[in-house]
């Protein structure tokens, strides 16, 4: 067996540190699996909670796709399953709006923010940096439990007689501010806002922990520029979260005041049922600015961890060093900075000054540069590589494909003039689902398949994974590619039905195809879940380093112990991407292997 870890000394270090101190020697089920302070367990908790949310969010999309595909049919069996959301076998319009709102909220925040960052930052940061645990394990656990509470509140809003929030995941006022405007703007909206404030607390606790762990807890030799790209990506993700989520809190707090105290931050000139309301001087555009100051960086919070993992996975499975390591880091930095100054491209049609629109167009198009740097680096990394076509590799390549397809339409939408035509159409839906939804899911799947052996000590079934990939990859394009054409033709997004528009009848067949593809893709994810849970218990036992990767997490014991390493923490001597080095007998050199004499002389010159 290749024991690549140098940590065989069986003595415990007197100054051992960095893992949870609150534990007793005898662990109960509850302290080990429920209220755990161990970063690996918390990572798994984030993952499995996220999976539950992904199934709920995906199921919602299936429900409203059924409505969009077959707007004239009735589905009595769905009425039996979902009761009040249906009348005479048809989805109620209010329920439809709740479903799209909750689908967006769940997928963007609960799955692709909390669960994606939460899982991989927790599992990978301490393991890849050589730390015994997070800087503050208690805050880490609190971050998870705030996420759970926030989720429970959001989930409970589904059972309200007035329905869950229904103003869209962007909750624009006045629709979200005045309970009279729609049933979902009543208690459902209140619970949405409370849930989201708690969610931000969770994100902040997690993010502060990730940043300080990365800056302060690295093992000897792990200088910043020796860190794997996953950690770099998670670092910038955490910073984006720390700086942008508070602005959402400000926006949400003012919205709560408008709803409860009767203030007019976002309201003006409102007449309901012929009665003028005493709101004056507020601006709904102000909310859009505050919301999108979070909302836009949010898409980078979603995509950066996936980018980091894909960089790592492509290098490992192509057996080649990552192409342009520093270019990758600086392009992430570039995306992070630019990501904060492009938010108003979501508001081109909201009545902002056209001059402002052109400024935001300029910055938006600039983002194409670092994005393209990353794409070219991924392609050049696998170029002429010794490709191992594994499940993580396939999903990583799928990520790159999705990112390119969705990124190109971003250049269209970033132009304020073209956006006049495309705003609020299915073109936008297709764009952001491909570039940040599906792409981020592909990154997440790649990460799960790649690090599953480190998380659970077993391998996932490869054949099931191939089937999962094939259906998901083809199916995702089948769902979203046709939407570009619908959008170009002007089909508006969010509408309950397009039956009233004679001109859109040509898309009836296309809508059915999209909906059928959506159902099949959803079922394929259940296949993934079966593979995941089956493999936890029955999967093939993993070897110490199943992918022959260089990073430190593969030197930590397979069974996963508190403190991560027996004895001393491995020391780092080289970067993470020494794959297929000429003259070296194996095609990888782990980070904890000392430099050879030859390398030392090379480094001196």
């Amino acid at each position, binding site marked *: 067996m290749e024991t690549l870890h140098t940590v065989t000394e069986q003595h415990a270090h007197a100054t051992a540190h960095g893992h949870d101190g609150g534990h007793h020697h005898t662990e109960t089920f509850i302290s080990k699996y429920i209220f755990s302070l161990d970063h690996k367990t918390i990572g798994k908790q984030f993952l499995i909670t996220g999976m539950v949310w992904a199934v709920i969010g995906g199921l919602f999309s299936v429900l409203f796709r059924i409505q969009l595909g077959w707007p004239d049919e009735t589905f009595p069996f769905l009425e039996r399953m979902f009761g009040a959301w249906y009348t005479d076998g048809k989805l109620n319009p209010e329920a439809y709006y709740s479903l799209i709102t909750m689908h967006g909220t769940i997928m963007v925040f609960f799955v692709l923010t909390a669960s994606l960052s939460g899982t991989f930052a927790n599992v990978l940061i301490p393991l890849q940096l050589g730390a015994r645990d997070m800087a503050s394990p208690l805050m880490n656990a609190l971050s998870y439990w705030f996420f759970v509470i926030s989720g429970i509140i959001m989930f409970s809003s589904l059972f309200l007689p007035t329905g869950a929030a229904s103003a869209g995941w962007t909750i624009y006022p006045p629709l979200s501010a005045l309970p009279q405007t729609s049933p979902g703007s009543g208690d459902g909206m209140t619970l949405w806002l409370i849930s989201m404030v708690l969610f931000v607390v969770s994100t902040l606790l997690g993010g502060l*922990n990730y940043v300080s762990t990365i800056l302060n807890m690295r093992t000897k030799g792990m200088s910043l520029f020796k860190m794997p790209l996953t950690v770099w990506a998670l670092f910038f993700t955490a910073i984006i979260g720390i700086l942008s989520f508070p602005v959402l809190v*400000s926006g949400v707090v003012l919205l709560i005041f408008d709803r409860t105290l009767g203030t007019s931050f976002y309201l003006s000139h409102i007449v309901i049922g012929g009665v003028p309301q005493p709101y004056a001087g507020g601006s709904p555009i102000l909310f859009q600015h505050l919301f999108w100051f979070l909302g836009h960086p949010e898409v980078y919070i979603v995509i950066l961890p996936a980018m980091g993992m894909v960089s790592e996975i492509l290098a490992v499975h192509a057996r080649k060093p990552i192409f342009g390591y520093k270019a990758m880091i600086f392009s992430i930095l570039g995306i992070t900075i630019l990501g904060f100054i492009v938010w108003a491209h979501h508001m081109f049609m909201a009545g902002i000054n056209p001059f402002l629109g052109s400024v935001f167009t300029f910055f938006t198009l600039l983002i194409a540069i670092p994005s393209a740097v990353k794409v070219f680096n991924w392609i050049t990394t696998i170029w002429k590589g010794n490709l191992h076509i594994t499940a993580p590799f396939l999903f990583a390549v799928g990520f790159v494909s999705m990112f390119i397809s969705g990124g190109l339409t971003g250049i269209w939408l970033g132009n304020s003039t073209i956006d006049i035509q495309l705003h609020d159409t299915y073109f936008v839906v297709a764009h952001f689902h491909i570039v940040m939804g599906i792409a981020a899911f592909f990154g997440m799947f790649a990460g799960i398949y790649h690090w599953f052996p480190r998380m659970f000590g077993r391998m996932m079934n490869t054949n099931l994974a191939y089937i999962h990939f094939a259906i998901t990859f083809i199916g995702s394009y089948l769902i979203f590619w046709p939407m570009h054409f619908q959008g170009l033709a002007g089909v508006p997004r969010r509408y309950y039905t397009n039956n009233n528009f004679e001109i859109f009848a040509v898309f009836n067949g296309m809508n059915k195809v999209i909906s059928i593809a959506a159902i099949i893709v959803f079922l394929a994810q259940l296949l993934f879940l079966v593979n995941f849970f089956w493999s936890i218990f029955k999967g093939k036992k993993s070897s110490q380093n199943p992918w022959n990767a260089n990073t430190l997490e593969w030197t930590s014991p397979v069974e996963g112990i508190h403190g991560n390493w027996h004895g001393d923490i491995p020391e780092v001597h080289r970067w993470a991407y020494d794959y297929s080095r000429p003259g070296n007998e194996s095609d990888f050199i782990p980070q904890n292997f000392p430099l050879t004499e030859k390398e030392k002389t090379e480094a001196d010159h």
Partner: protein
Amino acid sequence: MAEVLEIKEHHTVHQLPTADNGEGGEKSPMNISYGKTMMWYFLLSDAFTFSAFLIAYACLRLGHKWWPNPNDVFNAMPFMGHHKIPMGFVSIMTFILIMSSVFVVRAVQEGHRMNKKGVMYWMFWGILGGAAFLGCQAWEWQHLLAEGMRPFYNVFYEGKDGLTTLWNVHEQGKPLFSPGPVAFGALFFGITGFHGFHVFTGVCLNIWGFFATANGTFEKRGHYEMIEKLGLYWHFVDLVWVFVFLAFYLM
């Protein structure tokens, strides 16, 4: 398994004061402990929260043709009856808060000298300053509320020649639409309230720091870094007040 358990027993890192994490690890870029790193990043985050509020303030205020003159709104003083002293009371409040920050600076300094008594002495004055500030704020709020000011209703309207005039709700009644810009009261109560909430949190944390000092917690730990972290937060809250003061009272 035995060695793992042993690691737990010796676990001490959460109390380590410096960036050196004990196992020969890399130093943090600024060579500060993880706790301070966290506090700085938290303050950055909180700075964005307040910036968002103040930008919202600027947006709404610039959207109005007329805005009440702070000299005619904030001119009351306790025990002075109807004497009008523009900015008088808020100047006292601001002075108290800044002095409280100075006291906490002294506490941190005594902490570096490992002088437990000194830390307690200056923390006490810092806490007292914070509490006094909150008291002043409470008085100011109740005074404005008594004048008929509400988050959803503004009684300071544009009178003759654009002069700020008080609409006496007790005598003149209460029309459906508020006489002055509604956003004025909403922003004032919202933002000073949010700042006051921060001061309140800071006072609570400082009280905890005072008792932890008295218990000898930090003395046993060998350093008073916690007081320093509390100080960072306290100065931040003070700094935010400077901007809030500028926005609401001076402009």
